[in-house]
């Protein structure tokens, strides 16, 4: 499969090198969940190389972070190793999210990891959604569970989801779907749409001060003092009758 590259004059705000990050919740060795992600990552890298765009790929394996993830859920704060993983996601230009299907759903490990991410960590980042399962009967899990999860996170899932049951590894159709999803991801990256969305609409999403997102407010220079709440903070009497809450309840 080949892609038509955007011609001159079409904005390609692609950063260089493109940082692609694989998140895999596979736990066996070798893991078909990781294999699916790796094949997809390789295809994305090939397409980017063809287009003359340098790229790097990193992998976040959730298995070794399982205890850290569980503790972060209990304590409310990630430990050092988990924080490193979160930082890599924050800095990624695009993701490949790959999870096994257990008991008719995505891996609890994957969901728990998603649960400790800031709501704004992945805003407008292109993502390929991928899942593996022991039977083709679970094929819709990726679209029925991963897609809404990434919709909540305001990411941009590629139109084609990837799913592999055991029999898929023996046929060529999976490879074609991988090519298609990789092409979609590369086109999303090259269009710069994710960055444009974040540039133009960032303040419209929920954020938390000093969060993990690369654009998070970290000090007075980043904070918007023109909001209704900030005006009330500076002695204003009449605030909004209904205000947008900040993330969290405390």
């Amino acid at each position, binding site marked *: 499969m080949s892609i038509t590259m955007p011609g001159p004059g079409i904005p390609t705000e692609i950063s260089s090198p493109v940082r692609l990050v694989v998140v895999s919740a596979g736990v066996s060795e070798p893991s078909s969940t990781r294999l699916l992600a790796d094949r997809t990552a390789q295809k994305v890298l090939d397409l980017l190389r063809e287009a003359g765009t340098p790229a790097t790929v990193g992998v976040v394996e959730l298995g070794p972070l399982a205890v850290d993830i569980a503790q972060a859920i209990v304590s409310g704060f990630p430990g050092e190793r988990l924080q490193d993983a979160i930082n890599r996601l924050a800095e990624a230009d695009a993701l490949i999210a790959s999870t096994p299907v257990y008991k008719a759903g995505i891996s609890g490990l994957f969901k728990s990891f998603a649960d400790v991410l800031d709501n704004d960590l992945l805003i407008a980042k292109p993502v390929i959604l991928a899942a593996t399962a022991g039977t083709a009967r679970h094929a819709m899990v990726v679209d029925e569970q991963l897609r809404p999860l990434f919709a909540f996170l305001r990411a941009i899932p590629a139109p084609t989801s990837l799913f592999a049951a055991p029999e898929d590894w023996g046929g060529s159709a999976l490879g074609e779907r991988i090519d298609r999803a990789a092409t979609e991801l590369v086109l999303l990256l090259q269009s710069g749409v994710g960055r444009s969305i974040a540039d133009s609409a960032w303040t419209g999403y929920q954020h938390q001060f000093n969060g993990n997102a690369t654009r998070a407010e970290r000090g007075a220079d980043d904070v918007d003092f023109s909001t209704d709440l900030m005006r*009330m*903070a500076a002695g204003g009497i009449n605030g909004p009758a209904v205000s947008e809450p900040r993330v969290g309840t405390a």
Partner: protein
Amino acid sequence: MQFGIFTVGDIAPDPTTGHTQSEAERISNLVRIGQRADEVGLDVFALGEHHNPPFIPSSPPTLLSTVAALTKQIILSTSITLMTTNDPVKIAEDYAMLQHMAKGRLDLMVGRGNTVPVYPWFGKDIRQGVALALENYNLLHRLWREDVVDWEGSFRTPLQGFTSTPRPLDDVPPFVWHGSIRTPEIAEQAAFYGNGYFANHILAPNFHFKPLVDFYRERFEHYGHGTSDQAIVGLGGQAFIAKRSQDAVKTFRPYFENYPVFRGSSLDDFMKSTPLSVGSPQEIIDKTLTFQDGFGDYQRQLFSVDSMGLPVEMALEQVELLGTEVVPVLRKEMAARRAPGVPDAPTHSSLITKKYGDGEPRQPRPNPNRGDNLSGTSPYQDSDPAVEARFPVAV
């Protein structure tokens, strides 16, 4: 620099004996803890308002009033007073009265509260928590500074010609700290008024709160109250002290590991990666000095030492060790490291001096009841005659 203790008045079974204090026991034990803190020379005893078991401080002013009567020098405070679900008018009245009872040994820390059901119990909506806290404090600030207040906001009945009684002691309102762990608007409000900002500094990684403290400092300077290093910063912390380090860890471990908040967490991780200090007096001192290194010179350090089901004898011993072995050294060390020009936290007497210099403080005396349980358009004999109460008109 002020040092003290803060408590949420939680009740938990003692994991080593199975004993659970009754509410009556915990309440009188809290009073004892406040007394002991006074006796060993600590500067602050702060009580955190809660409205749900297993916490008992639903009414901090009532309990603090008793502590005030039984102590001599300690400042009473809160950690926190709920600025969202309380009526700011009642806060103005209750804490002004407490300030009189404590002869000025009172300040308070206001905050939002994060227990979801408390909001509907008091007819409020947690989704408006920040706006409630901001608007209510704006009103409280005026109620303590203006004899007659006309006011209209989004969350409570408008006020016309309202006078909050009693007026603050010596007509000097209690100093206010704003407590927040994640909300820049609250830090902004603290900075706008030149009030204090307090980070509870527990249950989170070391220096997690530094960006918000720095934000407050910068905005304090922006609003012209002083330079950023003169902003009034308070920090919390958690400590368990024993003469020997290993005894501290051994004794404290079952309390930590059985407390619901910490189940599934490791004490060793918490000691390493959060402000929790468990060890010998010297270890507590060393760790607390890192707070000054990280946050800059600050004005108030409070420790939580009586939580998690500790029996009262152990809690009293903690207060004693803190007051006799830890704080005297910290006072000396922190003073030696302190940059010149960094102010102390305001107290009632410093605020009197600031307002009146060598002059006599104002003592408001009401005008006589004119027969309708009001004192006319000017509530006090020395009220500015230009300021008239506008009472609601019956039609």
